[in-house]
């Protein structure tokens, strides 16, 4: 059987498992609604500050919400694989005549699907709340695709932790480790408004470049001097993190 076909079957099974927990589907939606309502409208007058790059704060936040959704669900993929390992089903898969890599690939594709679903919900809600995507329809597609790729890259971190520790509590708590990476960014304010150690931290945080690349498509359109660095960081992050996850996976599966 071909690698693609095996991956497809295992991927379908993973998605079925994910969808079988209603909270898995509902929580991203609740999360997004919360952020738009709590921060989007009440803080809207921030855009009146001189030099603020957007005239709609909800549009400015959209990038952060997309990135945050991915980061906060980063442990889900690792947790799903760990559940299979602890239940013994993972060994069942290893015993079958499938390429071992197809199991990992299916997990990463499931992570991408999860990120896709989250991105669709976020974009839909943003549109309903009146956010205007300056990048147009192509911009919407680009933003969704970048979120999916970021989801695949970020889930690799959760996978590595799950495969290395094989510990449920540690894997579940992964999001706490990466929580600062979302907030040490220009999530709420552009860099020009930041100072001191915070500004330095933002400058070296790779997640910030991805966030800015996504956000600029929403609030300003095709500004390549911001999009390209974000894309490069995203590609680099994906290559490094998925390769590292593959290495950990290979060690764990012999």
């Amino acid at each position: 059987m071909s690698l693609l076909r095996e991956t497809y079957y295992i991927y379908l099974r993973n998605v079925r498992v994910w969808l079988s927990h209603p909270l898995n589907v509902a929580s991203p939606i609740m999360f997004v609604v919360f952020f738009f309502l709590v921060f989007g409208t009440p803080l809207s007058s921030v855009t009146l500050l001189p030099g603020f790059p957007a005239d709609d704060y909800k549009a400015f936040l959209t990038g952060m919400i997309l990135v945050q959704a991915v980061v906060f669900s980063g442990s889900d993929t690792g947790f799903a694989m760990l559940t299979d390992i602890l239940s013994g089903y993972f060994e069942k898969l290893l015993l079958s005549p499938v390429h071992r890599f197809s199991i990992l690939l299916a997990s990463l594709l499931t992570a991408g699907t999860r990120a896709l679903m989250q991105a669709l919900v976020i974009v839909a809600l943003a549109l309903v709340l009146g956010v205007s995507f300056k990048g147009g329809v192509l911009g919407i597609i680009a933003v969704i695709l970048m979120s999916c790729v970021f989801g695949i890259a970020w889930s690799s971190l959760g996978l590595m932790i799950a495969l290395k520790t094989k510990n449920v509590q540690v894997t579940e708590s992964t999001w706490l480790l990466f929580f600062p990476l979302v907030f040490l960014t220009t999530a709420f304010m552009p860099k020009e408004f930041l100072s001191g150690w915070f500004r330095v931290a933002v400058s070296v945080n790779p997640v910030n470049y991805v966030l800015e690349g996504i956000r600029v498509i929403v609030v300003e359109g095709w500004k390549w001097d911001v999009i390209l660095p974000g894309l490069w960081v995203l590609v680099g992050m994906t290559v490094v993190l998925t390769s590292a996850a593959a290495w950990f996976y290979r060690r764990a599966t012999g």
Partner: protein
Amino acid sequence: MADSREAPPFSDPAMVLVEKLVKVYPGGTRAVDGIDVRVERGEFFGFLGPNGAGKSTVMKVLSTLLRKTSGRASVAGHDIDREPMAVRRNIGFAMQEVGLDDLAKGRDFLVMQGLLYGLSRHEAGRRADELLELVGLTSVAGRKVGTYSGGMRRRIDLAAALVHRPPLLFLDEPTTGLDPQTRLALWDHLKQLNDQGITVFLTTQTMEEADRLCRRIAIIDRGRIVAEGSPRALKAEVGGDVISLTFDQANGEVDLLRAQALVREQPYVVDVKPAGTGLSITTRDGGATLPSLLRLLLENGIVVANLSVSSPTLDDVFLKHTGRKIRSEAAAGNEWDQALRPWLGLGKR
């Protein structure tokens, strides 16, 4: 790995062929210490041994779940290092710890297994229905596997191992934790499968299971095979009936070494070994020699508190080769396990 690079491919028709297999875990535990095994096609073969003997490790190496440290092995004519995919296509494996997709419905789980083994969706569906019928789970096929009882989980696990009609079935302690009725039913299934030509390689700690099912067994202890043959031949090797004596300690501890030496001197005694607080004595005819033995011990101030006479069991075979009983190993393991589980926040097995 060097062995398999230099050695020629296997040409032996045996279903399982193992030469000098060694497995050392990280940390240094030598779980398998140079074993040789041959299982013929169509045979019902068993590994009998206590917890920690290396039975499951051998099976996991042969099924390509674990890498060996050294040695060679072929399964269904395929080298486990050079052709792992071919090995997996030719085996079904029902493991000691049943690993199932708990959120899948029974039938869907089997269909997925079929798909992974290359069956078309239609074939996988047909095969799933056939197997559900075989293992008596048709009525619960629409329920999630996570709702099944322990016995049902074992049965669907067996069905999953058979979905692709493998010529070789690995079963790692398949009846652990099952009630007697379910165990008997499973034994019947396995005998039927073997009658249909499937080679079965089983591991067990249960002597009755090995005795009933296996045409040939290998007794394994601490990573090594200590005896091999048919259950009947192995028991005949023990040399006769076994008289088990325990001594009355009410008037002080009995000197076991002295008692052993006394008994050993008698011409009708084949072998005598300490066994707990007594002795295990092998004689040609237990019934005839028992009165003489008891008189001898009483004359020397040794009072027997309890006795039994039995024909040799595989436990006696194990005792002969290792100096220990399988039962005491299994019981000790279970006692520790049961004692520790609450502390670890786990329920009883």
